[in-house]
């Protein structure tokens, strides 16, 4: 009986597992989410002393998570921009999943940011009393507006549900909303470029942190541009990775192989450009910026854990190597190469955000400073895992009940 009712909500022509099996898949994620919500509650109830952050490590696991998921979620705005404004029609196959991934990433980031900042009842202060000289204000405005845009982009997808579209008013709303999607794609691209850039920019302007400080163009340090480029490079890779993972878990073909090729090529070109500029930026920093502040660049890599290997890994293993794979047509057309390369790109972006968040704060900047270490508390880890669980849950439900992959039905019939 339950199965029959459940089937009425599954998109026409698509096969999904039985409802009890689906519930058993959701259960561990729900348990993880419940644990994380409890951890977040403790942080909100008892304050940030529930975490291992302190005056030195004002940014920790949560900010690392925010920066990483926002970068990985860039696939939403970038594929929307390419599809609706540049008319790259082949991206129609993944635009729905890109919107869900983007929505998961941004909503997760905002929730964890609210736990981090605390006092969620005063969240509106950010908008009413903005500190217009802070890049974080721009970031807050941008990601809030962009989340609203993502929600608007998610709505038509929600209304495409088999049952919901039987309601005429919802169907009409979805139809009309779909027509104006290019406007939201343009707004999304505008907002995303600025907040991706500003997230990088806020590290680049830290004069008191010579490890992160960069010079740049006008008021924008180079990290502003590198963050934008790395996010739009990782976005398509992350989409390919998500799609491939869902294919593996569901035992279904969801997109044609040429869609992976398109994503791989996009990512390859952008990672290539990013890593070239990153190399130039690093060389300028080593030879000019850092010495000007009285620091040898090498001194930042003499501390435990953060040796020069981290820089080499970021540039070579997670940059040049995947760029070469994704730029080689023969290799990127083979998923055995393409998917690991995409995973490397995503890891590279995560490592970059980790280095800028944690290594920047860990490195001593004054003669009497010591190298500091930071390990997140279980409450921080729990809240972090809650975001992961929330993402998996929302994506799983969306995958089951919404037509995320327009090619799936054709592929299963063939």
């Amino acid at each position, binding site marked *: 009986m339950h199965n029959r009712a459940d089937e009425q909500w599954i998109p*026409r*022509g698509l096969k999904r597992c039985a409802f009890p099996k689906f519930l058993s898949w959701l259960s561990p994620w729900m348990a993880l989410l419940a644990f994380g919500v409890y951890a977040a509650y403790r942080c909100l109830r008892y304050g940030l002393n529930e975490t291992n952050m302190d005056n030195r490590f004002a940014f920790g696991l949560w900010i690392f998570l925010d920066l990483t998921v926002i970068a990985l979620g860039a696939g939403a705005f970038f594929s929307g921009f390419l599809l609706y404004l540049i008319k790259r029609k082949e991206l129609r196959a993944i635009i729905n999943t890109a919107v869900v991934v983007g929505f998961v990433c941004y909503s997760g980031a905002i929730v964890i940011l609210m736990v981090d900042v605390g006092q969620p009842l005063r969240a509106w202060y950010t908008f009413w009393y*903005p500190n*217009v000289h802070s890049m974080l*204000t*721009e970031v807050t*405005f941008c990601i809030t*507006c962009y989340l*609203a*845009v993502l929600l*608007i982009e998610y709505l038509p997808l929600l209304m*495409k549900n088999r049952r919901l*579209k039987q309601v*005429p*008013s919802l*169907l*009409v*709303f*979805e*139809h*009309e*909303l779909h*027509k*104006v999607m290019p*406007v*939201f794609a343009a*707004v999304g691209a*505008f*907002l995303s470029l600025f907040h991706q850039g500003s997230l990088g920019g806020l590290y680049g302007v830290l004069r008191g942190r010579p490890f992160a400080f960069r010079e740049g163009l006008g008021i924008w340090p180079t990290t502003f541009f590198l963050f934008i480029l790395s996010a739009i490079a990782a976005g398509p890779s992350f989409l390919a990775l998500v799609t491939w993972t869902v294919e593996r878990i569901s035992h279904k073909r969801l997109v044609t192989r040429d869609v992976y090729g398109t994503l791989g090529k996009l990512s390859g070109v952008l990672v290539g450009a990013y890593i070239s500029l990153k190399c130039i930026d690093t060389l300028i920093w080593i030879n000019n910026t850092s010495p000007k502040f009285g620091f040898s660049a090498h001194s930042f890599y003499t501390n435990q854990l953060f040796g020069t290997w981290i820089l080499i890994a970021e540039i070579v293993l997670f940059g040049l190597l995947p760029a070469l794979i994704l730029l080689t047509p023969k290799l990127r057309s083979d998923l055995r190469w393409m998917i690991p390369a995409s995973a490397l790109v995503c890891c590279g972006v995560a490592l970059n955000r980790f280095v800028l968040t944690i290594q920047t704060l860990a490195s001593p900047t004054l003669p009497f400073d010591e190298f500091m270490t930071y390990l997140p508390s279980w409450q921080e880890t729990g809240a972090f895992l809650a975001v992961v669980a929330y993402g998996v849950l929302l994506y799983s439900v969306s995958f089951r009940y919404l037509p995320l992959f327009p090619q799936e*039905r*054709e592929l299963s*019939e063939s």
Partner: protein
Amino acid sequence: MLIFLGAFFCVAAVVAGTLAVVAVRGILDGAPERIAAIQWHSDFSDLLSADRCCRHVLTGEIDTRECPNEFDCRRCSEHPRHAQYNGDRLYHRGHACAQWNGDGSYNVTLDDAARGVIRGPLQLPEVGSVVFVNGTAWKAGDLRVLSPVTGEVIATADGSDGWYLRVRPETGFRTDHLLRGPEVEAWERYEAERVSRLNEDPDAAARLLLNA
């Protein structure tokens, strides 16, 4: 500060303005004929590309062509170039058919394939209401039977006499979009092949035939 906040207010204004446009358009789309057209547009886009094939492909006149007009041959530039057939029963691709009565009305019924599998209580429209091409003619359970004609319903029946609706078409109503003559046989063969893949599940067959 002015530039910074101004930029965000512009963005917010664009988003709010676009949503307002969507709301106004949605209200204007509230007419039954428009809703029927949007529902059909949605249903048609759900079809597999193979199931969107042109009627002239079914008869073998052309090799391959996906219909770009949502099966509305009245607005197709290709259709007049191909063979035109006659027939007294005119078939909609949603398995409803219309038969001219000679008194200014059509009898609307289901074709044999659909009649064999569609069950469930009938929800017929009221006499005096208007049905639209590709809009809901009546419901059988939760399944919508799509109307082959546009016009006023002048009588309803339970199908035992071979019809469900009697419809007086609107003035100047054209039937070019409906299959007839040898096209019907070719199309029904194609549909029977689709149904045969469903392992004799009548509910699934009904949903397939009615595109539900």
